[in-house]
């Protein structure tokens, strides 16, 4: 095996069909879609098709789709739009486990005079929705809640939250970057005003995203420029990548069943296999409400970066919420918000699968990982104590 790629929540491989679809627009079909000749018309027709394909996957209308450069731009655009179009409202509600794209923007705003409520989660990563509803006031400009968590895969009850939030006349945004393509989404039946998605999480290339803006939602553009995207996002379209994303959305629709059956089974088998063969290991998150492709497992008394580097020797790619891999000195804010004990937060590993993973790859990881954990534990001054506690408990 060349590589066992189990880090699909970080990014995904570009699907071969997607690459094929976009290539002509990097080669011969290079016209600016805004130009007046038929050479350009060909390109703009293809963009329209991409917009329809994205809308179809989301249960939205084509004109509600705005192409952006990435998920973070979509998140920023939505939150700034809500804040700027309602300058009298100075309160924002979000959660403690958001992706940095939302979390850091909200923290930034909190330093600039907005009041921000960060709603907590419980030990399984489930949102305290009662607290969320109680925190809503007439001063609340926007509520931003992620659809699914990137680290644990925990899925929040977006339909319920959106309904409650909108019933109070408040704008609702969801960062659905991890959810799109993995769980069915039908915006027609949901009361969501803004939804963000990112191309490279669903087998399109990096550098393209989408912001869904419900018809009638108050909006002000983040990137001001030309008339592109009906004036909602200036800048010449990233044509090839947008076309790629359209194709990727079409594929995601047709793979939805596979994702929720075969991929889910692979994930479950990986999880069960590792838990069975590695003592003092446990799943972080809520197995009942979780993306089908993600598992986050804490291995006590070992450190995540060391695990990843030893897995890398076997060409296994995954990621960790440990301090040393997060680029900061503290373990992931998601695991801390859940109150995961330090003993296992530092040794947490996230495996995120895709439709390209196979049974053989899962077998390989189940075979290779236990000796890695054992080896690191044999180095650790804490393991004997922990192991004894575990045997006793």
């Amino acid at each position, binding site marked *: 095996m060349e590589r066992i790629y189990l880090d699909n929540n970080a990014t995904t491989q570009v699907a071969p069909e997607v690459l094929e679809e976009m290539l002509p627009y990097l080669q011969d079909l290079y016209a600016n879609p805004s130009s007046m000749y038929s050479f350009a018309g060909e390109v703009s027709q293809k963009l329209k098709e991409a917009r329809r394909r994205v809308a179809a996957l989301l249960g939205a209308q084509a004109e509600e789709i705005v192409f952006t450069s990435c998920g973070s731009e979509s998140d920023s655009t939505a939150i700034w739009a809500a804040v700027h179009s309602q300058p009298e409202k100075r309160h924002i509600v979000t959660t403690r486990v958001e992706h940095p794209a939302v979390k850091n923007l909200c923290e930034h705003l909190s330093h600039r005079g907005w009041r921000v409520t960060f709603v907590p989660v419980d030990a399984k990563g489930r949102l305290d929705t009662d607290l969320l509803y109680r925190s809503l006031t007439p001063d609340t400009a926007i509520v931003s809640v992620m659809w699914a968590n990137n680290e644990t895969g925990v899925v929040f009850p977006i339909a319920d939250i959106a309904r409650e939030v909108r019933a109070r006349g408040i704008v609702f945004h969801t960062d659905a970057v991890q959810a799109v393509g993995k769980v069915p989404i039908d915006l027609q039946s949901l009361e969501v005003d803004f939804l963000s998605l990112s191309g490279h999480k669903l087998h399109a290339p990096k550098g393209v995203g989408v912001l869904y803006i419900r018809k009638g939602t108050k909006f002000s553009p983040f990137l001001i420029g030309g008339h592109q995207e009906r004036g909602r996002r200036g800048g010449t379209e990233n044509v090839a990548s947008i076309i790629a994303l359209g194709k990727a959305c079409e594929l995601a629709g047709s793979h939805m069943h596979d994702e929720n059956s075969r991929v889910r089974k692979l994930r479950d088998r990986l999880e069960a296999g590792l838990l069975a063969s590695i003592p003092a290991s446990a799943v972080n998150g809520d197995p009942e409400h979780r993306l089908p492709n993600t598992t986050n497992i804490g291995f006590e008394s070992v450190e995540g970066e060391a695990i990843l580097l030893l897995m890398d020797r076997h060409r296994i790619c995954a990621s960790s919420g440990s301090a040393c891999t997060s680029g900061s000195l*503290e373990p992931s804010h998601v695991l801390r918000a859940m109150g995961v004990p330090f003993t296992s937060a530092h040794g947490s590993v996230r495996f995120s699968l895709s439709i390209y993973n196979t049974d053989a790859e899962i077998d390989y990881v189940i075979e290779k990982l236990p000796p890695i954990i054992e080896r690191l534990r044999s180095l650790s*001054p804490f393991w004997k104590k922990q192991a004894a506690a575990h045997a006793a408990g």
Partner: protein
Amino acid sequence: MWEYTEKVKEHFLNPRNVGVIDDADGVGEVGSLACGDALTLYLKIDENERIQDAKFQTFGCASAIASSSALTEMIKGRTLEEAAKVTNDDIAQFLGGLPKEKMHCSVMGREALEKAIADYRGEAEKKVEGNIVCECFGVTDLQIERAVKENHLRTIEEVTDYTKAGGGCESCHDRIQEIIDHVLGMVHEPPKKARKLTNIQKIKLIEETLDREVKPSLKQDGGDIELVDVDGNTVLVKLRGTCATCSISQVTLKDYVEKKLRELVVPELVVEEV
């Protein structure tokens, strides 16, 4: 991905001297599970004060394991006097350098060595030297001062890379800057003279300070605090949320809440939980 030297990778993959010396003459323990890295160093020392054998156990990332391995290789066969001169920079140099964000791993090695030597010499377990500046990682002003001096650090970021101080909630950044300035010989203004407050003013100021300075940072971690009463200079409070069940809430109360109130209201205040 971190850019580790070949030597770091090699010592991580094949660490030397892993294990425990049951009849060790000196043992040095540093770090903790909470901090994400920890090292226990065991020394066997002969009658001429020469290190016959050194072993270690480390919980941590690749550079922590490699730094521990390097340390044991560097001190084996040396006299205690020679070993005591090993600096964190020597450990990093031995490994061909460490990413700057990982320099604290080499500092951990030097600290474990110092503790093991002190243990051998029967010097009583040294109390925490100095005053805690960074509560997230338990780093004192003296530790920071030493790292700044020895490694010619100039910025808060560098101090964090070397000592971890300031790498958590960041509330100690001002204090770290003061230490850097102090070491660099810059003069600081003396603290403002205490104001004379009426009782009403004092209570109001305590309330304001709790609301503005204390609550927001406690709330970030899901905690909260409630002012119950002010009796003379005793401030009675109740901890709420995660603070109520937190094992280090007393540290929070004394080292954070009390410190803030003393700093911003009057220096005589004492905070107590009811």
